[in-house]
């Protein structure tokens, strides 16, 4: 079962990466589809990280004592100010491992 999941996931992932690189494929996404897709990265990535930050132990933890939340806020500010991916991740993770 695990192998079935791995192989089928690989097919889905590879297809999404490769499909539109294929010159013979007459695939044209409509303008609306493309517009909707342009929101997929921020929406999906946010939906993945938000529970890690706000619900670390299965319960809502909006508190200064939640290191996930405080460090995520620091990361947000760093990302906004520096726009530097590496600096943001390294500094906020360093802070997190000190606090955690």
């Amino acid at each position, binding site marked *: 079962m695990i192998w079935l999941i791995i192989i089928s996931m690989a097919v889905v992932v590879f297809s999404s990466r490769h*499909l539109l690189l294929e010159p013979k494929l007459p695939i044209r996404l409509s303008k609306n589809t493309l517009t909707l897709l342009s929101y997929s990265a921020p929406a999906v990535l946010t939906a*993945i990280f938000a*529970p890690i930050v706000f619900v670390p132990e299965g319960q809502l933890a909006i508190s200064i004592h939640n290191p996930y939340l405080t460090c995520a806020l620091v990361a947000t500010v760093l990302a906004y100010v520096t726009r530097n991916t590496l600096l943001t991740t390294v500094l906020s993770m360093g802070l997190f491992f000190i606090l955690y």
Partner: protein
Amino acid sequence: MGAAELTSMTTSKSRSVLKGALAMMPLTIAVIPWGILAGSFALDVGLTPVESQAMSAIIFAGSAQLVALGMIKAGIGIGSILITTLLITSRHLLYAMAMRSHISPLPLKWRLGLGFLLTDELFAITNQSHGGDKLAQHQFDRWYALGGGLTFYIGWNIATLLGIVAGQSIDHLDDLGLDFAIAATFIAIVVPTVKKPSILVCVLVSLTLAVVCAVFAIQAGLLIAAISGMVAGMAYAKLTGEGNAVSAPVHSSTSHSAKSHTDSVKKDQNR
């Protein structure tokens, strides 16, 4: 073609591969804790070491792997896992769309190879290599892309292996808070892409619903939150006429995020 010419061509190819590898280094380093988590979490969920490594080697998609592992652990069926994977990976359709003009004229082995290696990170460094605001149509360097893509692939797999090895000897490696690496990376990627009010709306809706679903332990939370966020962002843009301000809303928003991602990579390199 003379021998000297052949030699110089080979040299310029290997130089391009090396340049791509170097450009990818900062992002490869940033992905290490994440790879360790992917390896150790896979063991924790009950996969064998070979299966755990195979996930990174065959699927090669960090966020999809981690989310799928969480779903396997929760006993969710393969259908839901694949639908979720499709949603998570759908952003690659856009990357491929943006790189279509560069990659689709290449021979099949290049299309397959670069397609397999096409990640958020590869998209960022290949667009950066062209410099400026606009992607130059003529200047795509396949060897540079290959060097960057392979470096990231190898880095991701070594980090996964580290996680598998460490996970076998250290208990509760996933309690070390490595999952914060995911949050930190995604925040670092998402924040610079918020350049329009509609993207902010999209992020806030997705964030709120993801948290609500997590609190109530709703399994399909990721799907609900992400799709709602996308629809809300698009609806906001349509209602406010945000997209009409520029001639091609789709491409502008794509290159916006690519550009900001690129900018951050550029800064990484200048450090």
